[in-house]
């Protein structure tokens, strides 16, 4: 049971927030993180079109041997991605609560520019409270 990290990807595929909570995954430079987030954005767009049953919201969980990423897509196209261990069961609930914190501490903050990197102490505090210190 471990939560490794959180990404927030804006609707253009840019990584606007990235934070690590626990060791366990390879440490990446911020540039590598940006590239990975952009790649995930592309993969997600493809998976949304793969469904044989009409429109789909795209990939929701991607699992590897050592970790899984849970993807939460909001109505506005922002993606919240939580990197956790395989046996983590509450990732979806955590993402919901992070989305709530994002709506409160980021979107209602006059000093945040939409689609730009998130630098908000209030949001950091809320995320810490949701996930734990890490």
């Amino acid at each position, binding site marked *: 049971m471990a939560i490794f990290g959180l990404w927030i990807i804006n609707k253009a595929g840019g990584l606007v927030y990235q934070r690590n909570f626990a060791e366990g995954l390879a440490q990446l430079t911020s540039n590598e993180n940006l590239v990975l987030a952009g790649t995930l954005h592309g993969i997600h767009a493809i998976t949304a079109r793969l469904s044989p049953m009409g429109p789909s919201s795209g990939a929701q969980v991607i699992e590897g041997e050592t970790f899984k990423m849970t993807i939460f897509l909001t109505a506005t196209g922002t993606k919240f991605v939580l990197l956790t261990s395989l046996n983590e069961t509450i990732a979806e609930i955590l993402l919901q609560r992070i989305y709530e914190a994002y709506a*409160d*501490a980021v*979107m*209602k*903050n*006059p*000093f945040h520019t939409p689609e730009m990197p998130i*630098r*908000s*102490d*209030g*949001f950091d*505090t809320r995320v810490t409270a949701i996930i734990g210190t890490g």
Partner: protein
Amino acid sequence: MAYSQPHPRLSVLSNSSHSSAEHLSPTASSTRFSLPTAPSIHSQLSTQKVPLNRPGPSIYDRPLNKSRGAEVSVSAFAFLLSEIVQYTQKRVNGINDLERRLNTLGYRIGVRVVELMLWRSESSSKTPKREVRLLPVLMMIHSQVWKAVFGKAADAIEKSVENADEYMIIDNDPVIERHISVPRDLSQLSCSSFTAGIVEAVLDGLGFPARVTAHSTPLAQFRSRTTILIKLEKSVLEREELFK
């Protein structure tokens, strides 16, 4: 063509005029655009005929004394305030200017708050009274004004040790700053200047002219704790002396 279309409120009354207008509308008659699924404007309007015909009482028709159920959503207010701050920030040079503008905006609210609040509390009374002493007025701002505007009383009221003309109202978790994180390069800014403007207007309205400013005084457990500093004019203190 615009004149031939019925007014949306009228269009629900007559189906014949409705269909003739649709015949004239460009989306229905033109074959240049392939918009098979685009709903016609008129059909969208006619599905809303129930709310259009039955508007609730407007804010001007509600009784002034009824404050229950008249609260507004904090979220809606937070978004509005966020836009106010962004709008103001684009039109000023520097933090002082921004605070002064927010203060002015708050002042316009405070003028109305004092009038409405006194009307609500004193209009039904057989012996309406007006507060003329300083401390009761400050207590009234601390509790009643705060309750009327933010739904809770402020947390503390203090008198300055150094200056006799300075009083402070302290709010540990101001509603208007709940969702605001001020970036480091603007750390001097306090968006509670808006609140300071409200307080200044209330004091002015009650005959206690003062200069009111807001200062961020965070504590470990109260990140957005704010002090509203009231600097009274000399005439107010002189009058207080006469009352003693």
